């Protein structure tokens, strides 16, 4: 011991002992770690042991730690369980809102500020998750995907009708789905190119677009033979068949002549999934009310809307 102490060399300037190593005349100081740093280091070591005991920390051999592959710790902490509990909590919080929604008429929803607020929030959330991909975040729609804000409804715009559409979808394999099919007049060679062009001119003229008078007259004849059974003689459409009103200003597939010709040529086949089974009834209620309340909803029995008859 005394020998050792004798060997220790202290730096003259700082008073710190050296390690005895020398490189090119430079001696390495053996400056100790600051005490506060060292104590924090010891404290973290101690903390690690406490953590191992309390929290899941170590991989475990199969069967040694129950169903998991790691030690559970005394606190039996599980982040997965926490998330499940939080989700259950959230559902419990929302339950009262969904319970109030069940069986409520759209008038009741509209007149109850609390329920109205709930429907708009819950509906917007469900819409964003499930519907916005096709209909747009603001339900404004795209070519081929209807705008849900306006007053145009292919299959009816009452709360009940909207709910039915959401539940069973359009042209799905659900037995209760809305179904109809417009022929592909061009592709299946039911009409010639010029005939299709004339029908397009006639249909466009129904909503005030200008076209050649001869073409319109010719198109009208073909229309009455080929189209009037679904779209009605006056072009006002038929909701029972999802046949749109051709006299209004709304064009699902575009109002350009080329677009109209194209759609007569190939025949549209727009589909929407059936949501029953994917979403619970309460969520479908909220979605239907949300869509209804976007501004275009029709009160029951008001099927004389622009696309109705």
């Amino acid at each position: 011991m005394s020998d050792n102490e004798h060997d220790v060399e202290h730096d003259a300037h700082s008073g710190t002992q050296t390690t005895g190593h020398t490189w090119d005349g430079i001696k390495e100081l053996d400056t100790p770690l600051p005490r506060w740093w060292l104590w924090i280091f010891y404290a973290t070591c101690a903390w690690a042991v406490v953590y191992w005991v309390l929290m899941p920390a170590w991989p475990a051999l199969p069967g040694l730690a129950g169903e998991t592959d790691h030690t559970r710790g005394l606190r039996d902490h599980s982040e997965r369980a926490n998330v499940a509990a939080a989700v259950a909590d959230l559902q419990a919080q929302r339950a009262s809102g969904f319970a109030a929604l069940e069986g409520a008429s759209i008038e009741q929803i509209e007149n109850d500020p609390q329920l109205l607020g709930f429907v708009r929030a819950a509906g917007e959330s469900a819409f964003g998750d499930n519907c916005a991909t096709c209909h747009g975040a603001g339900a404004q729609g795209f070519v081929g995907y209807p705008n849900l804000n306006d007053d145009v409804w292919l299959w009816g715009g009452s709360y009940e009708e909207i709910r039915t559409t959401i539940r069973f979808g359009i042209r799905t394999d659900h037995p209760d789905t809305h179904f109809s099919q417009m022929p592909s007049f061009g592709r299946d060679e039911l009409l010639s190119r010029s005939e299709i062009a004339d029908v397009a001119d006639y249909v466009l003229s129904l909503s005030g677009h200008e076209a050649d008078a001869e073409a319109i007259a010719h198109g009208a004849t073909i229309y009455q033979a080929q189209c009037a059974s679904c779209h009605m003689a006056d072009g006002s459409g038929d909701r029972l068949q999802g046949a749109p009103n051709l006299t209004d200003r709304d064009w699902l597939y575009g109002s350009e002549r080329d677009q109209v010709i194209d759609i007569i040529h190939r025949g549209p086949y727009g589909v929407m999934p059936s949501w029953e089974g994917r979403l619970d009834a309460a969520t479908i209620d909220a979605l239907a009310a949300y869509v209804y309340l976007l501004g275009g909803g029709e009160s029951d029995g008001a099927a004389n809307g622009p696309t109705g008859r």
Partner: protein
Amino acid sequence: MSEQKKHAMAAPGIRQSKAEAVNAADTRELYKKREQIYPKLAHGKFRSLKWLVMAVTLGIYYIVPFLRWDRGPDAPDQAVLVDFAGRRFYFFFIEIWPQEVYYITGLLILAALALFLATALFGRVWCGYACPQTVWTDLFIWVERAFEGDRNARMRLDKSPWSFNKLWRKVGKHTVWLLIALATGGAWILYFHDAYDTLANFFTGQAAASSYLFAGVLTFTTYTLAGTMREQVCTYMCPWPRIQAAMTDREALNVTYRFDRGEPRGAHKKSESWDDRGDCIDCKQCVAVCPMGVDIREGSQLECIQCALCIDACDDIMKKVGRPTGLITYETDDNVERFEKGEKPRYRFFRARTMVYATAFLIVAAVMLGALVNRTELELNSQRDRNPNYVILSDGSVRNGYTLKVVNKANEPRIMDLVVEGDPSIQVRVLGAPEDDPMQLSIEADRTRDFVLYLTLPADAVDGPREELRFRVTDRTTGETATTPSMIITGAGE
């Protein structure tokens, strides 16, 4: 007797104190460890004034949460309440919503200007009398004195080895300190929840976790700041001592040593004449009573909080030696110089600095008063839907959606009429409005409510990409009205 001989005498019957100004500029080294200060109890008018200020400020702090103010059945009846859960601030007849936080801003500006003005006139009176740090430190020193005695006894006790006597005094002191600290932190939380409920809940363990947290934090800070840190808070932590140099000037009434009268200082012998010497007998009582550990005779200095206790101590001595009091007094630097030249003192309370502070104070106060008097209890905001920006209906008419936010700050529910001022052909639909009264908006007391509105402009009325309009709601009972501008986007020309 031999003990007494060690003491130098400052004057017949007056010993020179051994007190050292531990924080004086020439004494304190930059990295020196803190030296404990043992302020001696002073007696006199400023000490009495400080006791009074302490009683009043502590009284306000502890009593205010228990004052009641009737605001009707739907609002809390606590006179002063910061209601975080309800997002309201109540101050007697004033009720402030979160968006009106500018009242608090204004109040802080007023407080700052008042501080500037007070400093320009009377130096650091805030520090010396009313600052919580000063008040609580004073209180803690009072407790310390009650347990351990005055300056000399405390110094002896601290130097003495541990004994039962020392132990119980120390334990007693710290216990009372902790109780006061707890009462300080405990009273703080009463300002944030109903005081009576909170008090009951606090001791039964049912108060909110945040209540215990803040009570705990403030107990800790009170105990450390007033008990153990004391003058270091003022010297090192508080920014005000640094700012004050810019606020005070040569014409401000500061606690000042009249060196024109005092110098040359020195012990005074019984038969010695007072001619050709100063009144200061160098008894160092001013240093002994100083809670900041400075010597006021070195002039104004950063550490001095101007608590005026040295005035009391010095006046006491001056009376004993038969000299006029006021050797240390509230005086301006300019006047001390004038005294030295044999001139008369001059006091100018109205000077550019004070006038600017006072004017700024009055302007801010007037603006705030005006804002408070004209504060509306009915507000209206609108937000137009942007997704979709507009909706073209089947007949070519255009519809825009809006969220109308009505703020009712009154303690009464309201029934209001909505009017859309703009193109008369606009059709209005309010979601959830009664069928027989489609333009009626109703709102509960003290609430905000969102209304969903759809405005439809017929196709033949569209004559541009947008039309300006204005929403107006009018209370059917009181006639109060609020408006907000908006527009309808038609998409024409796109």
